[in-house]
């Protein structure tokens, strides 16, 4: 049984002091239901999550208490991907015909701070100032630049593109283009990454209505089909965040594993994909994730990015909505934002940022601590 996405809704990302995270989730859910042309009481089940804005099943208080099974999902950056994958299984199994997936969040300003105890680490690791995700990203790209000849200018180009795409997206947080020199010359956060090369914690909400593919046309003129939704965790030897030590022999990371499994499940390859959303918690992540997801060889990113291939209108448009860099990262909603964007693109409804040429296949990828990755492939 295939699964279709028949309704999508989003609360704008950024900062909305007047609404709680939960209210932003409810806002997105109402839009998704309206988009599918159904009522909340038509929904048979729901999965959802937030990292900092409370239990997703409290959405019932906003939308109405209908007695459906509503499962709260907490899986870090892969919360949205995990909800989606599980909802997909619920429909494929035949247990349910139609359901809702929701993710929302509202974080404090500044970098995320994590407690070592929650990750099975000693307090010393945090006391010494090592429990910081931005350090990991900086060290991973630092080594990658050394190994594959990626330039600092290319890192700035990634952020430049994100803000250009964000300027075309009414739901984005950062909608003003920034000159590449200003990005490169901005205050350094973790060498080689400057302030503009990192995304910030933010707020927002996304909801999707899913149903059995054979009933999709009943609700929606342009259903988008979920060809694969895969979640993987790290194997021993992959270079991951929050690791006091790393193996001498490196293994492929969870992104590579999730990507391969998703392509296999969908029966397509990287060259077939028309629009791509990759986890870009910082500029370097987008560069490395291009190769880890199979869209190029290691090192080819330098030429691809410098030549504009990853821009809207390029041969492999990446992060067409501005990505995490322009939208910030409300953890519970971030992965679903990518799916929302691809559904818009595949419907041909992405407005000023529409990828030309009637895109048929879209790809989303999330990566998060402590080494998890979620990938989806959508087809119209």
């Amino acid at each position, binding site marked *: 049984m295939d699964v279709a996405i028949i309704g999508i809704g989003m609360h704008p990302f950024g900062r909305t002091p007047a609404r709680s995270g939960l209210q932003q989730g409810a806002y997105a859910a109402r839009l998704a239901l309206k988009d599918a042309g159904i009522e909340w009481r038509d929904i048979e089940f729901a999965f959802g999550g937030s990292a900092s804005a409370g239990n997703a099943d409290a959405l019932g208080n906003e939308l109405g208490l209908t007695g459906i099974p509503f499962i709260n999902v907490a899986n870090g950056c892969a919360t949205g991907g995990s909800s989606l994958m599980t909802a997909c299984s619920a429909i494929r199994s035949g247990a349910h015909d139609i359901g809702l997936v929701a993710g929302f969040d509202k974080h404090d300003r*500044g*970098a995320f*701070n994590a*407690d*070592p105890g929650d990750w099975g680490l*000693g*307090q*010393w690791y*945090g*006391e*010494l*100032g*090592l*429990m*910081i995700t931005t*350090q990991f990203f*900086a*060290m*991973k790209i*630092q*080594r990658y630049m*050394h190994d594959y000849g990626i330039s600092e200018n290319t890192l700035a180009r990634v952020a430049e593109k994100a803000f250009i795409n964000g300027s075309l997206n009414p739901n984005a947080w950062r909608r003003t283009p920034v000159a590449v020199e200003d990005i490169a010359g901005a*205050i*350094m*956060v*973790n*060498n*080689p990454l400057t302030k503009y090369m990192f995304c910030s914690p933010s707020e927002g909400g996304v909801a999707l209505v899913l149903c059995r593919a054979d009933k999709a046309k009943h609700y929606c003129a342009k259903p988008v089909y979920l060809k694969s939704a895969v979640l993987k965790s790290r194997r*021993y*030897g992959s270079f991951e965040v929050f*690791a*006091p*030590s*790393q*193996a*001498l022999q490196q293994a492929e990371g969870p992104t590579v594993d999730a990507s391969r499994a998703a392509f296999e499940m969908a029966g397509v390859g990287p060259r077939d994909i028309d629009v791509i959303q990759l986890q870009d918690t910082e500029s370097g992540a987008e560069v490395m994730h291009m190769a880890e997801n199979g869209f190029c060889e290691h090192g080819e990113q330098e030429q691809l990015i410098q030549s504009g291939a990853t821009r809207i209108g390029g041969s492999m448009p990446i992060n067409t909505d501005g990505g995490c860099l322009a939208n910030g990262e409300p953890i519970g909603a971030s992965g679903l934002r990518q799916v929302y964007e691809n559904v818009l693109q595949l419907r041909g409804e992405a407005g000023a940022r529409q990828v030309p040429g009637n895109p048929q296949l879209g790809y989303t990828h999330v990566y998060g601590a402590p080494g998890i990755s979620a990938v989806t492939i959508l087809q119209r």
Partner: protein
Amino acid sequence: MSNRLPIAEGLFTWPAKKPALLGSRCDRCGIASFPAAQSCMACGSQEVTVEELPSRGTLWTWTVQQFMPKSPYNSGETPETFRPYGVGYLELPGGVRVEGRLTESDPRKLRVGMAMDVVFDTWRTEPNGDEIVSFFFQPVA
């Protein structure tokens, strides 16, 4: 007289004339990890042996932390006295790559592949005068 105490028990030999980082090595698959764990992260075996890790290695990757981290960071610094610090993974031959603070924080003096020693020094001084000792990676002179 003040005490000199390790930042955590079991991270390195202490007190010792020449302290060393302590890792664990799996008796079954030979994989080492730091800090010493009760089971092997690669195969799950609980038959592991604690061993002293080498004191010299090469810098596998690095960055400089330019902003002061939030709690649980505990260095005794204030936002006014905070100084950026280097962080890196040191590849210890035959062992693992261990993450730690660098004694060098000037990005112009750091490069992948440079030789570094594991050194031990005072990390912070507690209000009661106790000195808390930790490990650092220092460029070989």
